[in-house]
């Protein structure tokens, strides 16, 4: 049956779901809000996990970081699934067109040898770093508390495998279309001295049970790794005539800018919490300080090797970034 009702205006009895009316008042909710706020079950779990009977299925106690209201944090990017995949489809397109361009003009094989060596020795093995970051982010997605946080972590986990694949694709391209370089990169990741600090940090990170601390430890590593490879060396590559390095690096750099938006917002929410803020601040400083010490020691040999290859002041840059991270956290928690 068809009704001709197009001109009809019906005042709806309610504008959105009860939990959103209680939080935001009776106004239409955004799709982000509908799909994120309060979605995680709160109470009356039936059974305790067999692998961890001390906790409930979802349990605030999986981290020492607490929010009085877990939904005081929202993703500044307002990503629910649809805008997330739309954004990532566009990013993947951009990476693909860069790779096509590099391939078409044979730009990778025309890079200065030192920069090709840097990519093969240090950059391509980072696909395993990304793969490790995927696992850490998945743990946050499962054990974090509150859908707004865990949703960000789940997308971040998927991003990390995407990053690993992008790095692998540049590895395939560097080698003219085979996976030989990827195989070498795996051996380097496991055996080469300059990479061992980073690998050790990641393996130790797998054992971090507190998802909040894991997030910070990964973020600290990321800030040094991304700052070096996709910020500092990107610049240096342009000066050194290795523009193809930069063409690739820009995509990773812009992903990292996007990633840090939610991480920063979460730090701010932790610190701003009226009840738990003080404890969160102390934890944030302590965790960052400890993570920075480990990350600096881990990345120093890698930066030193980069300097041997391309002489770009990488070691000094890592130290400078570490100082910036420390100062930023100090400013946030002052």
């Amino acid at each position, binding site marked *: 049956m068809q*009704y001709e*009702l*197009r001109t*009809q*205006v*019906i*005042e709806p*009895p*309610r*504008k*959105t*779901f*009860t*939990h959103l009316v209680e939080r935001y008042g009776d106004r239409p909710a955004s*799709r982000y809000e509908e*799909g994120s706020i*309060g*979605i*995680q*079950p709160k109470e*009356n779990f*039936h*059974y*305790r*996990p*067999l692998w961890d009977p001390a906790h409930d*299925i979802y349990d605030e106690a999986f981290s020492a970081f607490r929010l009085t209201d877990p939904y005081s944090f929202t993703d500044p990017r307002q990503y629910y*699934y*649809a805008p997330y*995949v*739309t954004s990532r*489809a566009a990013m*993947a*397109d951009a990476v693909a067109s860069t790779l096509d361009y590099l391939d078409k*003009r044979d730009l990778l094989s025309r890079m200065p040898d030192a920069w090709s060596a840097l990519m093969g020795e240090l950059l391509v093995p980072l*696909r*395993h770093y990304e*793969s490790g970051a*995927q*696992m850490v982010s*998945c743990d946050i*997605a499962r054990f974090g508390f509150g859908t707004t946080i865990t*949703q960000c*972590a*789940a997308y971040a*986990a*998927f991003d990390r495998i995407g990053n*690993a*694949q992008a790095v*692998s694709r540049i590895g*395939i391209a560097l080698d*003219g*279309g*085979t*996976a030989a370089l990827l195989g070498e990169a*795996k051996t380097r*990741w*496991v055996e080469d001295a300059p990479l061992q600090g980073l690998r050790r940090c990641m*393996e130790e990170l797998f*054992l971090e049970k507190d998802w909040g601390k894991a997030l910070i430890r990964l973020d600290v590593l990321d800030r040094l790794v991304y700052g070096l490879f996709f910020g500092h060396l990107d610049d240096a590559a342009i000066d050194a005539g290795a523009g193809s390095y930069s063409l690739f690096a820009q995509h990773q750099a812009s992903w990292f800018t996007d990633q840090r938006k939610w991480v920063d917002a979460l730090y701010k929410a932790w610190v701003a919490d009226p009840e738990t803020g003080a404890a969160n601040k102390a934890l944030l400083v302590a965790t960052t300080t400890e993570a920075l010490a480990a990350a600096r020691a881990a990345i120093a040999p890698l930066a030193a090797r980069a300097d041997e290859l391309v002489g770009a002041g990488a070691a000094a840059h890592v130290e400078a970034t570490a100082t910036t991270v420390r100062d930023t956290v100090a400013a946030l928690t002052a």
Partner: protein
Amino acid sequence: MTIAPKAPRRLTMKQRYEALTRDLDWEPSYVERSDVFPHTEFEGIKIHDWSKWEDPFRLTVDSYTKYQAEKDKRLYAVLDGFAQSQGHLSLTEASYLNAMKLFIQGVTPLEYAAHRNFAYLARHLDGPGPRFAALCQSIDEMRHTQTEIHTLSNYNKYYGGFHNYLEQYDRVWYLSVPKSFFDDALSAGPFEFLIAIGFSFEYLLTNLLFVPFMSGASFNGDLPTMTFGFSAQSDESRHMTLGLEAIKFLLEQDEANVPIVQAWIDKWFWRGYRVTALVAQMLDYMLPRKVMSWKEAFELYFEEQMLGGLFQDLAFYGIRPPMHVDDAIAEKEILSHQVYWTLYQFSHAAAFTTTVPDAGAQKWLSENYTETFDQLYKPLWDKEAKNIEAGGRHFARGLPQLCQVCQVPMLFTEPGDPTTLCQRESVYNGEKFQTCSDGCQWIFEREPEKYVQAWLPVHQIYQGNCGGPTVPDVLTWYGIQDGDGGEYKGSVDDRNWQKWHDAADHSNIGSEG
């Protein structure tokens, strides 16, 4: 300068895929492997070679995002168009939405639970292949959670029963059926979860859950739900493939896995089958325009496709059909009637409405259930029709005993005897526990230490944990508002529906909330 083209040394698709996914791993040497993956041993499953895992998805991140973004663009366009043109008024009837109320209350939260626990697998399975597959499914399940909420959000604005679905999932008596089912899986180890959800639920029972809902939507003018269902279908087929791959992988890795997997199939078939009881009554009673009977759906999707197809293949690995499957087959003639009759009597405490099936519906039920409807269930409705004529629409006053395992009220009857209630009793640590069937009793006695933990809504009400001792106290605690439950005829939804259709010529009409 001219550029000489290089001789291509391209990877095959398979090699490229493997390089981009399977190879992204390493053997830890700074920490113990068993500390990195501490959850994959306690269930007794033996995996010798993770690389034997066949990737069911074969997707890379770029192809995944491109494909999914296209699908979502189309879906949200339909949702927007439907909302703008008051599409809800072209449903067969407002009572159709009872099926969708059950969906958002009882199914959407399960998608979310699946999302979180596939993230657990994406961290805790030892092999990079299955980790990536689980990660894809994890974010797919988030998609389903959100697309379902967004699809049904428009109905929530105009109709009762949708607005408090999240809190109700945690609290309301009949929703403890799906919740306890998924909590059971979430609290299990990674391999049991893979069999419970990846295989038993996604592969064995998903057709019984989703096909009826989506066909019901299409038969009753619900374009958004139908579109959502189609859009989810390509994700679901990947999930089903993952489930099938999971079971084959476990069975091929070690013969010692076979009895463990068999016991999980036995448990999760029955657990899942009990959840689909809600679907059985939906198909036979809630849809104004019927799609197919529960009996027909069960015969087609379960008996023909699963028992006749899948289990023939699994026999090769030493797997037999699920224990207690004969009881399920025998129940197909009576299941929906018994469940709806119970929901009918308790809908004053539910967030959906019920009503006596009208003459047309009863005729359809007689034709589809020739062995049982006229003999056993029509007399109940005839009697109820007389009650209603006398002004006495019947609601049950007491609270039902719930099964300790499936948490459905103890409404099922003895195998082969549809007039005698089935009740099983087990003793654990000196305490008695009731179950509704041999299947649930077997599940209880296999893991009593788990099932004694169950949060049973009726027990909780009696213990004073649900807002107070009276029915209105409990309904307030459930967040149930006027118009959410009870009798459909004369309900807020019914009255609004009549008014909106009567007033189709007017340009501005209100509604009662």
